């Protein structure tokens, strides 16, 4: 259960980034989470409300995009998407590969804010 630690890191980072837009409210936080990142999306969502309560992010939505594992298969000479995370075997040729191109991500992609329009 390290999701609370992860969510706390997100709150910290987003609060710092949003400070560049004074008066703006954060509406949504978008994450990219790889299938091999060992993070349970439901737990992130569960912790989100608790961790944002009383912070500038209170009320913001959390949107998590899960990314499948992508392996570069040398014999096939191309990147292949894997259905699960139990085996790094190319679904085309059946060879095992070690060259992961996607699947370990744990990052904040973007945030959506509403800006206070400046009156001229």
């Amino acid at each position: 259960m390290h999701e609370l630690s992860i969510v706390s890191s997100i709150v910290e980072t987003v609060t710092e980034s949003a400070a560049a837009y004074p008066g703006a409210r954060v509406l949504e936080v978008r994450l990219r989470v790889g299938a091999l990142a060992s993070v349970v999306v439901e737990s992130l969502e569960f912790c989100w409300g608790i961790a944002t309560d009383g912070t500038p992010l209170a009320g913001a939505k959390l949107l998590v995009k899960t990314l499948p594992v992508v392996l570069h298969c040398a014999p096939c000479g191309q990147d292949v998407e894997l259905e699960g995370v139990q085996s790094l075997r190319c679904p085309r040729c059946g060879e095992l590969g070690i060259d992961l191109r996607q699947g370990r991500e744990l990052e904040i992609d973007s945030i959506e804010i509403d800006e206070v329009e400046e009156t001229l």
Partner: protein
Amino acid sequence: MTTRIVELRRGILKKNDELAAGLRSSYAAAGVLVLNLVSSPGTGKTAFLELTLRELRARGAKVAALVGDLETDNDARRLAASGAPVRQINTHGICHLDAEMIGRHIDGWEGVTLAALDYLFIENVGNLVCPSSYDLGEGIRVALLSVTEGEDKPLKYPTLFNSADAAVITKIDIAEPCSFDRDLALRNINEIRPGIRIFETSAKTGAGMEPWLDYLAEERTRRET
């Protein structure tokens, strides 16, 4: 009022990753090989590490260990019986060690300096999930699995096994009464981390320790050159 999308593209654990990168440089500058041992509770990390510390000391190596647990210094006391300097890290409820904890416990470690060590072992909190996300700057991440746990552990916890540099199977002295399917376990580890070095050991009988200790020595030499 207008809405706007701000691209951040930032790693969530970036702070930990930055601290870990700093640790990695300091380990390299000190010439110490650092290993991060990760497994479930009860795999036998402490018994395996205690024997490893003893055997390395018998070979003339300078070793030390940091050991993480939620509470108590029981493991530190067990490991200290090997004669190596050992420091306990109590995480007080946190399910993993992070780079900040490691840095803090190395800095304030009385009588131990990295430059005087050949090997530093970090025994992580017993947990197969959370420690895999936190880089401690280690040179080698070791995933341990005991014969009592079931051969499908690597499939259930692929992230750890996939991010490991070596795997250790412990308690092989009781493999038979546990009906441990060795071939299946090796195959499962290899499916998620093809080509990984796998060591089969028993801390009770000492079986399988030689190849493991040789591997450590080889890795140290390889990194020095």
